[in-house]
Each structure stands twice: as structure tokens, then as C-alpha cells.
């Protein structure tokens, strides 16, 4: 891969790496940390969009909420802002693995709709939607979520070998 090395500092070793190695490194960061690299230089701007997995597992935020419920609203705001932001900026035509894990209630159906539309548009091979609402008493116990996807419906059925759907703790009412 020919690249113009003229603009590089002489001791900038990381920029001499080929793209696929930098993507290997980015895949070991959280999504937020990977997006932060987009501002490092023009070369890094869209590198993170080559990630095959978008794993929005907000472990730290969920721990904060478990420790003190007052964090819930703030963490939820940050989380949805993060996912919505990534969905807007991710410009690769396909994505292999899309994972959501957060406490979300039925007010968020339209938001989750958008996330699922994104997943379908990018032809994800594996979609995980973990909303954990049944675990907590202070959230609604039933979550009637209507799946309105304007896409071929067979892309989300479980008997298609290329698509795997894990939906945990969500009751889906179809039709």
C-alpha cells in the first residue's frame, strides 16, 4: 500500500503502520475511545469506521447506576447520545456485530427503532439487544416494544443462517 510518508514526523512510528494493524488496535478500545482517534490526523479520521464490531456495553455506567440510582438519568442520556452519534457517523456499508446493553424503558422505543434500522441497513450478522428491564424493580416490568422495520423482515428471523439475533429480557409484540 503506497502512502505518502512526507508529512510524518521522523519519530511518528505509529503512522507507518498499515491500516489493518491500526484497525486491530482500535478494535481493542471502547467505541468512544476509537471515535476519539478520528481527530488525531486526516489519516485517522475515518479509520474507526472500519471496525467490524460496535459493542456498546456500558459496563462502567451500569455499575455507577447499580451503586446509586440517581446516576440513571445522566448515564442514560450519555449512552443514547453516544449510540446516536456513532450511528450518524459510521460510514462503512456493512457491520458484523452490533451490541446494545443498557437499562432502557418503553419511552425509548422510537430511539431503539432507529438503532435497529441502522443495524438492518448495515446488514449486521449478529445483533444483541440487552435491555435488562426485568431485573430492576424501579423500572417497568413489561416493555411492549413494537418492532417497525422497513426492511425485508426475513433479515431478522432466527432461522436464517447468516443472521443471529439475541434478544434478552424483552417482550416483543408483533403486528
Amino acid at each position, binding site marked *: 500500500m503506497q502512502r505518502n510518508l512526507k508529512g510524518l514526523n521522523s519519530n511518528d*512510528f505509529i*503512522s507507518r503502520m498499515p491500516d489493518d*494493524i491500526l484497525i486491530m488496535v482500535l478494535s481493542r478500545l471502547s467505541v468512544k475511545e476509537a*471515535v*476519539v482517534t478520528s481527530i*488525531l*490526523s*486526516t489519516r485517522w479520521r475515518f479509520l474507526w469506521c472500519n471496525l467490524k464490531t460496535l459493542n456498546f456495553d456500558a459496563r462502567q455506567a451500569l455499575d455507577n447506576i447499580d451503586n446509586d440510582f440517581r446516576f440513571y438519568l445522566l448515564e442514560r442520556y*450519555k449512552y443514547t447520545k453516544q449510540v446516536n452519534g456513532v450511528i450518524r457517523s459510521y460510514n462503512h456499508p456493512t457491520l458484523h456485530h452490533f451490541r446494545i446493553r443498557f437499562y432502557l424503558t418503553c419511552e425509548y422505543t422510537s430511539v431503539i427503532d432507529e438503532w435497529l434500522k441502522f443495524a438492518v441497513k448495515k446488514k449486521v450478522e449478529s445483533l444483541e439487544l440487552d435491555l435488562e428491564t426485568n431485573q430492576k424493580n424501579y423500572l417497568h416490568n413489561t416493555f411492549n416494544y413494537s418492532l417497525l422495520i422497513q426492511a425485508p423482515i426475513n433479515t431478522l428471523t432466527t432461522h436464517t443462517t447468516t443472521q443471529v439475533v439475541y434478544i434478552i429480557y424483552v417482550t416483543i409484540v408483533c403486528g
Partner: protein
Amino acid sequence: MLKNLNSKHIQRFSYKYLPQFPISPNSPKLGFSRSQIANYRSNFPTTIMSSSKTIVLRSSDGETFEVDEAVAVESQTIKHMIEDGCADTSIPLPNVTSKILSKVIEYCKKHVETPNADEKVAEEDLKSFDADFVKVDQSTLFDLILAANYLNIKSLLDLTCQTVADMIKGKTPEEIRKTFNIKNDFTPEEEEEVRRENAWAFE
């Protein structure tokens, strides 16, 4: 060629020049298929095929390193070259300098010598070896990444990439640029645009 053969050559060349299978006019001149070689080796008396075989690796700057085959095949690239019968005299590695190759060999030796760490002590020992192994300057670290990639040594590639990821984690963009001496070649307008596009990431 035959007059230069000594016993050392016979160990290495015997499967090539003394085949058990008849050579038809249509079969290739050199090189048997992997299954033929594997089949041949399993039939050949073990006294001739030495189990502690060594491989010679040649770095880009001409230095040679003799290593046990078990260590050399930690690299999938080298493993396939051996299986394909390309490991006659030495394996040239034009992409790897002697400095980096000696480090890679040190890593492979340690990982081959340590038995599959069910024992806590062996596992701790290997972990601390790995931690010390990557305490090198950036130039060496990135050369190790390139070598691990070229030689296809998964555990070394994972270790080195994780090290770089740990150097990026938790830092602001300016700190990352400083760590790696990355030049910011955005125009002010471009940079503003990137910040706006992903504002949530920079708060």
C-alpha cells in the same frame, strides 16, 4: 549436487530425493503435496527423521539464527513454508531485521518452553515475561507488530496490539498525539467539522 551430500543433508533432504512414491512424467519436478510429505514422514523410520530438527532463519541483514523447529513453527508463516518444502537450507525473512528477529525468537522460545499454564506459577511467570517483553521503545514495539503480523504469530500480535491500545486508552487527543508524535494535519475548519460531527466523544 549429490556429491555434496553429507549425513546432515540426508536428514533434511531425504524426503525429497528418496521418495517412496513412483515419479510419473506428469508429477511435478520438485515438491510433493503436504499430504504426501506427511504420509511419507509417518512411514519413514524414525531413526533417520530426527525429532529435534532445527531450522535456520535468515534476517534481512544476513544474520542467521538456528532454532528448534518447535519454536520456529510458532510462526504460522514459517510453519507453512516448512510444510511446503521451502525450508531447504535456510528460510529468508527479508522483512525482519536481526534485532527484531532475535526478540521474536526469544518470545517464541519462552512460550514453547512454558507448559500449557494450568499451574498458577507458570501462568504468572509467563504474564510477567510478556509485560517485560513489551517494555521497549516505540520503534522496536512497532517493528515487533509488523514482524508478528508478517510471521503470523497470533499471541505476539495480540500482546503488542494490546500494548498500543493501552497507550491510547483514557488519553485526550492532544495527549495521544504527544505520545506517538502524530502531526495534526487538519485545517482549522476540518478539525472543527470533525469535532462537531462527533461532539459527544470530545466532551
